[in-house]
């Protein structure tokens, strides 16, 4: 069963400078399918369209043409929102709330009844290893801890699909290891995971397939399960895709 389906999706950004419109391509004619239970990575340089793709799937941006589906729901759709959990790049939270309060708030918005919410919050905070710090204000949290709060809020309503945008950017090695192990645990739970990154070494450790995106166009899809030396081979494929001329000169 397809968890994500994207058909000819195009997003052009329009900005006005002194009343003169300027256009830039977010993504163009993007086609992509992600199977249920799969961990899919979108790999690309900065500004290649990774975040735009995720935001279009989540209804934060509206497409100029094409369409996208979360399961059978054409996005943007309120029912599709119930099926997804999202962690943006460098998430910002209400720093005056505690970890428990913020998870409770997002749980309420996701329509979880109060009696179930308390139990779920306990479970999730245990999963992301924040149970001991549940009453601490987020203003006192480290970047790694905030990222774990981010994962917790994405999981509170038990979504089928998780979207992680640049999950490990800015984290120290301990934070990176924690995030990786969390993703692997979610993978064991058969969650569909759609993540974006520009860090090849991390993507190969968790993903089943990788889509390489360049200047808003999906250039290649690589099945990592078929590669022997995943790290080196994916790096080679990636570099030859995003900067073919320099790859030739390196060779």
């Amino acid at each position, binding site marked *: 069963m397809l968890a994500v389906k994207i058909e000819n999706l195009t997003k052009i950004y329009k900005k006005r400078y002194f009343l003169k419109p300027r256009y830039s391509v977010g993504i163009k004619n993007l086609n992509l399918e992600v199977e249920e239970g799969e961990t899919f990575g979108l790999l690309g340089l900065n500004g290649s369209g990774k975040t735009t793709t995720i935001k279009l799937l989540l209804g934060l*941006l509206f497409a100029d043409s094409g369409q996208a589906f979360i399961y059978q729901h054409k996005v943007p759709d309120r029912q599709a*929102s119930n099926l997804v959990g*999202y962690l943006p790049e460098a998430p910002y939270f*209400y720093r005056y*709330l505690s970890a428990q309060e913020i998870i409770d708030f997002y749980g309420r918005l*996701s329509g979880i009844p109060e009696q179930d919410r308390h139990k779920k919050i306990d479970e999730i905070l245990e999963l992301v290893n924040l149970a001991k710090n549940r009453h601490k204000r987020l203003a006192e949290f480290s970047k790694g801890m905030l990222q774990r709060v981010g994962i917790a809020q994405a999981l509170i309503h038990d979504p089928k699909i998780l979207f992680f945008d640049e999950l490990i950017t800015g984290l120290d090695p301990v934070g990176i290891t924690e995030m990786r192990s969390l993703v692997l645990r979610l993978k064991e739970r058969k969650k569909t995971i759609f993540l974006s990154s520009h860090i090849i070494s991390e993507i190969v450790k968790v993903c089943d397939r990788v889509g390489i995106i360049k200047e808003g166009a999906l250039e290649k899809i690589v099945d990592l399960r078929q590669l022997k030396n995943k790290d080196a081979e994916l790096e080679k494929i990636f570099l030859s895709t995003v900067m073919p001329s320099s790859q030739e000169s390196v060779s």
Partner: protein
Amino acid sequence: MNILPIAEYTIMENIRSKIFYILLLFVFIMAGSSLVFSSLAPDTEARVITDIGLACIEMFTLLTGIFAAVNLVLQEIENRTIYLLMTRPLRRWEYIVGRYLGVLVILCFNVITMLSVLILLLKLTTSWTIYPMFVWSAVAIFFKMIIIVAVALTASLVFTSSITAMAFSFLMWVLGHFSSELKLMAERVQSLLAKGFLYLLYYAIPNFQLFNLKDKLGIPEGMPLDVVSIVLLYGLIYAAIFLVIGSLFFSKKEF
């Protein structure tokens, strides 16, 4: 329906952002006024403190209301906390209405607190006794806020600039207090274009003069309930129109 959690967190956000410090300023001004005017005859002193007090309640509530309403959504977009809200099964209009109601609760609390301080001060310093019109005047100030908060919130969504939205809201506030003058000018002006424009302003801008019950403080018996109901209904209709416009703009917004 997700209006309630949004309203609740708006209240919590405002409480923790120390917005209530403005109440301390009110207490200082009122204490100062009572000292300055203590040399006046008791009746005059009570009247002056009442006027200053109600004017301060209105001004402080207006400033707090416009500032809070304009920054509600804009700050959330700037801080990117909006991402995690808009990816929840939350309708965009629910978010706007929840934010709006949250600010109104805060303003209601502000009005009640300032009014209590004023009553206490008048009781302690003069032989003043409370009368219905006095309370209605404070209620009418809150009714004005029902409109102006909706105006400010909508302006922030339309202009996406806090300075422009605040300026627009203040302009609406000022023009709304000159409704009868706008109508008079529209009736007298010769040019058809100017006449049309003035009538447009007259009908589009809420008439805040309707709420100015503090001008009628000399009539102590109070306002008939049907008049108050009509004034409240008028405020609610205007607020609803602005909130619908704001929600429409917000529904098209990308993050």
